[in-house]
């Protein structure tokens, strides 16, 4: 294992200390339990938005805490859902009297821990709604299984719900918006290499020098299929076809598109992927209204990328364009 770290057990706390030192103007960090909170939280009268999940997906979620996006993030251990006491502390810290939305990625652990936290917070009088994000088309959806995973749509939901909360929407409206974003989003990822969980010390999976994994999860979970590395055009074609046909996205649709790096893929490749995606969608008559290209929801140092599309309407675009001021995403004013 090659990482620039000290003790594997200290990675998260020491990285959080770096976040605290680098972004003291935007966020404050608490360590026991670990949460990253918007510096001016709780904002009175505003719906608080809390998300969280395993660490190792930076900048998500901590990098999205700030004006116009999250009020707090709960960083779990690497690839492990945070614990209910973190979520409860975050919920309390951001409760400005208008209730708190939990944005939860659909993983058994995340869902169960957030459920326990919501029970605890509600018992103490905070109004909590939870929305579960499940946008990954690589996974077969079914009533009888854990369902699809939550991936890239989480970033879009956090941005859009953050903007809605900022303009004063109430909890139900913000939660409904979150459900709307989720219902209209689809994602798929792929990997060229594995990642290595610091505490595990070894790559999560082995993959040949000429192989790639299509449909990979953001925790290095194996995907749909292992195959020989294909061209960018073919890779984007496979992923986009799966995404577009699932919702489905139709000719005439306008979308917010995210081309996301898994952590170890350079920007030059992500823009090349964006170019292929743009061409692919053009052929289908789908227009990209807004885009994000970069590392937003990563898997440590994994090489690979994911694509997320959200069917956009005027309301979503207006919220997308609203100002945001966080360590990892900022525009507007």
């Amino acid at each position: 294992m090659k990482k620039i770290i000290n003790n594997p057990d200290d990675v998260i706390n020491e990285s959080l200390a770096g976040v605290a030192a680098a972004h003291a103007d935007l966020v404050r960090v608490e360590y026991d339990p670990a949460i990253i909170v918007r510096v001016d939280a709780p904002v009175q009268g505003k719906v608080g938005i809390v998300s969280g999940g395993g660490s190792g997906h930076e900048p998500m979620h901590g990098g999205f805490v700030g004006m116009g996006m999250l009020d707090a993030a709960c960083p779990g251990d690497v690839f492990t859902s945070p614990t209910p006491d973190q979520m409860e502390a975050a919920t309390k810290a951001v409760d400005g009297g208008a209730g708190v939305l939990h944005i939860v990625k659909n993983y058994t652990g995340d869902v169960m821990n957030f459920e326990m936290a919501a029970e605890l917070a509600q018992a103490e009088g905070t109004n909590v709604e939870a929305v579960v994000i499940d946008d990954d088309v690589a996974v077969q959806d079914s009533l009888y299984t854990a369902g699809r995973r939550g991936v890239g749509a989480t970033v879009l939901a956090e941005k859009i719900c953050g903007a809605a909360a900022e303009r004063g929407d109430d909890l139900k409206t913000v939660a409904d918006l979150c459900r709307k974003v989720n219902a209209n989003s689809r994602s798929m990822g792929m990997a060229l290499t594995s990642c290595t969980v610091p505490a595990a010390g070894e790559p999560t999976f082995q993959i040949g020098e000429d192989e790639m994994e299509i449909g990979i999860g953001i925790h290095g979970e194996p995907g749909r299929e292992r195959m020989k590395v294909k061209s960018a055009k073919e890779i984007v074609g496979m992923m986009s076809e799966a995404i577009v046909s699932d919702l489905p996205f139709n000719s005439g649709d306008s979308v917010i598109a995210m081309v996301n790096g898994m952590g170890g893929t350079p920007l030059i490749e992500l823009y090349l992927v964006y170019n292929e995606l743009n061409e692919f969608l053009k052929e289908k008559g789908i227009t990209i209204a807004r885009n994000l290209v970069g590392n937003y929801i990563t898997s440590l140092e994994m090489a690979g990328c994911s694509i997320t599309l959200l069917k956009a309407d005027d309301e979503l675009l207006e919220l997308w364009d609203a100002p945001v001021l966080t360590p990892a995403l900022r525009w507007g004013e």
Partner: protein
Amino acid sequence: MAVSRDNLVAWIEALQQVYNENKEYLTKLDAAIGDADHGINMNRGFTAVKTELESNPPDNIASVLKSVAMTLIKKVGGASGPLYGTFFLRASTAVTGKEELDAAAVVSMFETGFSGIIQRGKAEVGDKTMVDAWTPALAAMNEALDSDASLKEVLEKGAAAAEQGMKDTIPLQAKKGRASYLGERSKGHQDPGATSTCLMLQKAAELWS
């Protein structure tokens, strides 16, 4: 024998060692069909449990179980944190006020704890989860109880059935938890949570005899 508070604590402390020794093994199993952390999670959880029991020793059986539960809930995260946490929390409600547990009380403790796992995780037998170890183990233990077996015999039957259940997860396609995302590809691998459950029961059978 009957299980005292100290026997219970000895088991829990032994589990810390069990999960420490099996950290790589459980993590490897999880790498195949999950996210390569089950061993790390269990080890982190039970290390914290042991520290907490040492610094704040609870004085009776129910409070030991409750302390274990709260630590697991706080320190583990993931799927196994709330599942094992809820298990111990429920288990403690089955033994409130008891100073010693005979074979029937031990089985009832496990059974009540297990009902928490079901309620929290909503998995069924055959979903390729820890439920596939608990279910045959509890059936075997109840059967042994019915034929008046000793605590040792009851636990050995339970551990053996858990082991069988654990092995039986290999061909299954996962329906719950992270492994379910793999669909067909989850077949051919042993479930990590069923394995950690089996280790838990094996240790009880070894110590409480």
